[in-house]
């Protein structure tokens, strides 16, 4: 079971208060598709993903970025039970979407980098530690139902 200190909870909810879901969603997913181009394999129906400009201008990428962020918000609201509350999402990613779970870590890294850019100096080392712990728990939960 994951144990969260009060400081960690405060740091994580603090990040969410400052998060612009549209901006972070598009930029994090967009960067994932640009920095780790093999991740494009999962988005064949998204149309033009051939270069950075087309990715960042792609409405489906923007929409899906927001879906991802909304999923993270669900985790934040269920911080003491992420593992179980994410079981259906994990099954979805495994059985329907067939996403290699290693990719979750790549997207998590991009989310962290975009959040850092958005928050600037407010993204202190303490906040980064709590945030990355939170993302690690989400990533682990998403990989749990794979078999």
């Amino acid at each position, binding site marked *: 079971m994951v144990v969260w200190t009060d400081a960690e909870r405060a740091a994580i909810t603090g990040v969410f208060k400052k998060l612009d879901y549209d901006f972070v969603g598009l930029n994090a997913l*967009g*960067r994932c598709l*640009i*920095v*780790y*181009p*093999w*991740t*494009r*394999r999962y*988005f*064949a*129906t*998204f*149309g033009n*993903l*051939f270069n*950075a400009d087309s*990715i*960042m201008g792609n409405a489906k990428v923007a929409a899906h970025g927001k879906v991802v962020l909304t999923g993270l918000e669900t985790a934040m609201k269920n911080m003491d039970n992420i593992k179980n509350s994410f079981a259906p999402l994990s099954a979805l990613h495994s059985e329907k979407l067939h996403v*290699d779970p*290693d*990719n979750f*870590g*790549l997207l*998590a*890294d991009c989310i*962290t*980098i*975009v959040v*850092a*850019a*958005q*928050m*600037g*100096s407010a*993204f202190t*080392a*303490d906040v*980064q*530690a709590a945030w*990355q712990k939170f993302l*690690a728990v989400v*990533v682990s939960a998403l990989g749990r139902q794979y078999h």
Partner: protein
Amino acid sequence: MGSVFTLLRHPQSAFTFFSPLIPRATMSLSAKEKDLIRSFFSKVSGKMDVVGHEALSRMLMVYPQTKTYFSHWKDLTPGSEPVRKHGKTIMEGVKEGVNNIDDLPAGLVNLSELHAYTLRVDPSNFKILSHCILVVLSMMFPGDFTPEVHVAMDKFLTNVALALSEKYR
């Protein structure tokens, strides 16, 4: 018409944040990426010491297992003299990488020997420090750290790490 990457499974996709023990394969830098790196780095170089200090502080705090390499320091807190000094040393090494971008293993051979024979830092930690450097660059240079610069720098730091690992065994 879908993405050309649909059916491609790069083996490198298995090497990630959560598999730190396995180093990533080299993905060569294009001429354009080298230009991007050089030009971005010239913007960063004035604040190199701050970047190094911030990245190192974050590494020690966010990944406490990395503190095991610094048990000989009297002070590991952010702002302390050893952390500042070492952050600067690290970025000087990164700069050496930029200066030898056309042949990193040859250019960084001395640093590789140092890490392999003397320091014996587990190579999984290179990925950790690289990530912290990218986070700090993103924070300090949000306008310049575009997605194109991001991918070029990520590849560059991966290749630096591989060059540093050359002499390990």
